[in-house]
């Protein structure tokens, strides 16, 4: 069993679990209980997550009250309760899935914050923060350029004075570091 605790074994184990859980989700999605399929996502993720971590604990030192004890205890209960939730999804004894919101719009929002994360490292904190605020406000249908400019500049000044100067936080400067 220890083969599955690291390297190729762990990778194979993870892929197998992901495939099985995807199969369960797809089965539910196209069954007459499809209104509950979304509710199954988190229990399935929890089961996969727990089983992957359980495989890793096989490599931990075996001793009484050792490092594997508590993780395995939580894993046991997490799998048990997630399975109960999954059972409720199949029997319809759980709340129906929420209405589908603007997932695409949310995706753009998440994409912007991820882009902001990478931009901080390359463009530096101050430039990327200004850009992030301006673009996000525009995305949220705010169309007053002067206010957008003021909020962006105000935040950059505020973060420079409070975090950089007052709290001595070494914010990433990106390429402008070469010019200072």
């Amino acid at each position, binding site marked *: 069993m220890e083969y599955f605790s690291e390297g190729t074994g762990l990778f194979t184990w993870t892929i197998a679990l992901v495939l099985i859980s995807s199969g369960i989700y797809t089965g539910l999605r196209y069954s007459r209980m499809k209104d509950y399929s979304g509710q199954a996502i988190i229990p399935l993720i929890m089961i996969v997550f727990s089983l992957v971590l359980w495989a890793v604990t096989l490599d931990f030192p075996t*001793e009484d009250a050792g490092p594997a004890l508590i993780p395995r205890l939580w894993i046991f209960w997490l799998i048990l309760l997630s399975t109960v*939730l999954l059972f*409720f999804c199949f029997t319809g004894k759980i709340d129906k899935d929420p209405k589908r919101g*603007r997932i695409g*719009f949310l995706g753009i929002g998440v994409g912007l914050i991820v882009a902001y994360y990478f931009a901080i490292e390359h463009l530096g904190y101050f430039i990327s923060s200004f850009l992030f605020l301006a673009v996000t406000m525009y995305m949220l249908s705010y169309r007053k350029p002067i206010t957008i400019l003021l909020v962006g500049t105000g935040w950059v000044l505020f*973060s420079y004075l409070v975090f950089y100067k007052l709290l001595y*936080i070494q914010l990433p400067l990106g390429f402008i570091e070469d010019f200072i």
Partner: protein
Amino acid sequence: MELVESFTIGFSVILGWKPLLIIVTGVIFGILAGAMPGLSPSTAVALLVPFSYTMSPALALILLTSIYIASNYGGSITAVLINTPGTPSAAVTAMDGYPLTQQGKAGKGLGTALVASTIGGAVGVLILILFAVPLARVALKFSPADYCALALFGLATVASMSRGNVIKSMVAILFGLLIKTIGTDPISGVSRFTFGNDMLYDGFTLIPALIGLFAISVVFSKFETWTGVGRVMDKIDNKLPSMQEFLKIKYTILRSSIIGTIIGIFPGAGATIAAFISYDMSKRASKEPEKFGHGSLEGVAAAESANSSSVGGALVPLLALGIPGSATDAVLLGAFMLHDLVPGPMLFQDNPEIVYGIFSALIVANIVMLFLGLYGNRLFIKVVSVPEAIMYPVILAIAIIGSFAVNGSMFDVAACIGFGVVGWFFKRYGFPVAPVVLGIVLGKMVEENFRRAVMMDGYGVFYRDKLAFIVLLIAFFSFVWPLYKAWRHHRQPATSGNDEAKI
């Protein structure tokens, strides 16, 4: 005499222009954050933790507790004016507060909410002082098994008292507990679940995780339901209730304050349950129960005094035992850790200036809140009217810089965004986020004490140690009872033609 001496120390910490300025700033920020729908007290405190990074521990905690107490009142402003509770507990305030606004009596609603919050907050602090100090003394004698049992009791009650699905709450807690096991094992030093990543040797940093789960997830949820329509606030009248009207509701305020504090002491119960129970009890005790729900000042007073007094109650287990009773307390615990402090009985012995500084700051913050509320409500309403299209990007910017500031690490920023996605996903499918945080916060306490107890006295210690045994028994029943009730309810045939009960 000892208490007087301790308070002399406490007040010496807060008397000075700097601490007073911090209290005023905290109260203003707390009211504004509480008033903004979507920003709960826990989000407000989490967002400000990084700002307190370089302050002295006492000043940092004074700032954060001032925000905590004021944000509970702030929630009532939008609840009364636009029927949009700024905080979950203010939903009860809206039931009578908004009808008052519709009747052109918004000033009376806000005034009642303010005075009830102030008195409730003061009663909560008084009971906090009376309970926390002796409890901390008793807690000095607790064994590791007792601490483990108390932490498990806290987690069990959080699960059982959460609104909605108990199993989902338990899954959320277990997820938090499992996340906490990532990193170096606190006892043997073995690396667990780090997958060779150096950044994970100390596990996930608490503050970025909290900011992600509380702040970023809220913004993501707003994005998903984005309509682009902003809030509209009408002009309000500013006429406060008369002294006669206040005197009429004095017993309601007092009763609800006591109920709120006691409920607040129980982990997981929190301000919302306190407000609902107090509202219900006040309605039963009222001479005019028919007015409840139609603009009753008693209704507003009951909800507000209870939710504000619950702050003092919730701080009892945090300060005396190191067990957070609510999501905001979990954030405060994170702030304590950030400043290398461990709440619990030893804090009263080693750092009395911090404990009594917090007590004194809470008293002063209540007074500051009363004055700022009386004279600044109009200004707060203007600030709260800031378009959401500006507010949410700024919250994201604060969250990112806040998570970076803790360790100066971009890994923490990535973790913060990751936890934000997890939080949004949890919320979307009805899994509460606060239990995840409580699991992360209490995970170390449970594990360390459990393993120490087992290593010292074997597994039988949880049976032999009377306190641990009783607490574990109560924890077990407090978890199982709601499950049993849901099961019974489910088995009963539907009588009203509604959907069958969901467990």
